[in-house]
């Protein structure tokens, strides 16, 4: 195998390995999952932060109406995983409930091992809220 061809191939492999670690160009966001939750906004915001933690996000933004987390990127034997940014946007409704809009942003590099976390995040939020409600409900 000619030396120049080998060096080109080695450079390509190294570029691929480095590329899977570095943040790539963000792809367009998905349409997300929207829902109205029967709890006040403060409780839902706390549940959202807990839910993002459970799915493996490190919380990067925690504002009054917006919580965002990023999953750590990992290189694997096949495709690895991680690198997604999951965001939860909250808004109060007129009847004291809270509307949530959950979106996952994937990256171009390492995208093969990434998944959409919208529904799972909503499920975790409901689980957290259900547990909180059970903890505060007095035993009959």
């Amino acid at each position, binding site marked *: 195998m000619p030396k120049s061809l080998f060096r080109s191939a080695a450079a390509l492999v190294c570029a691929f390995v480095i590329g899977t670690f570095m943040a790539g160009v963000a792809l367009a966001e998905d349409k997300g999952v929207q829902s109205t939750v029967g709890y006040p906004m403060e409780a839902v915001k706390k549940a959202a932060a807990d839910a993002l933690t*459970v799915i493996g996000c*490190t919380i990067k933004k925690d504002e009054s109406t917006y919580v965002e987390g990023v999953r750590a*990127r*990992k290189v694997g034997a096949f495709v690895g995983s991680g690198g997604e940014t999951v965001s939860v946007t909250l808004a109060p409704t007129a009847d004291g409930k809270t509307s949530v809009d959950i979106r996952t942003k994937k990256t171009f590099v390492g995208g093969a091992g990434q998944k959409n976390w919208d529904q799972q995040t909503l499920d975790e939020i409901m689980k957290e809220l259900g547990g909180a409600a059970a903890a505060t409900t007095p035993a009959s």
Partner: protein
Amino acid sequence: MRRRRKIYADAGVALICVLLGGLSGCASTQSRHEFLGQSFSARPADAPVEVFRSDPPIRPFVKTARLDVHLEKTGFMTSNLESALPELKKQARETGSDAIIEITERRSQVLETMVYHVTAYGIRYVDPH
């Protein structure tokens, strides 16, 4: 012949670099704590932390914080509570907790990545030590 040996040596070095690059990023650990009400000062890094895996302690206590540790490993490698305990105890110390109770474990999988998440609660004993 010498030229072929040099090519094989270069290939070996490149392969080692790729493997090391892959191994260094095949696992991740995230942890977080959240005070339930009053916040407490952190305890020393070598302070003992009791772990109650089933029943809570008999001594009166108050819950201080929720603790979360999240482990992910690629290549179908699994994690367990023992691997999460050091980080869980660290989070407990940071919240000024004396012990850990109500340990809840969750396992899932994303392609080749095995996911392990543990949630627990830190507590402080009410009576003096």
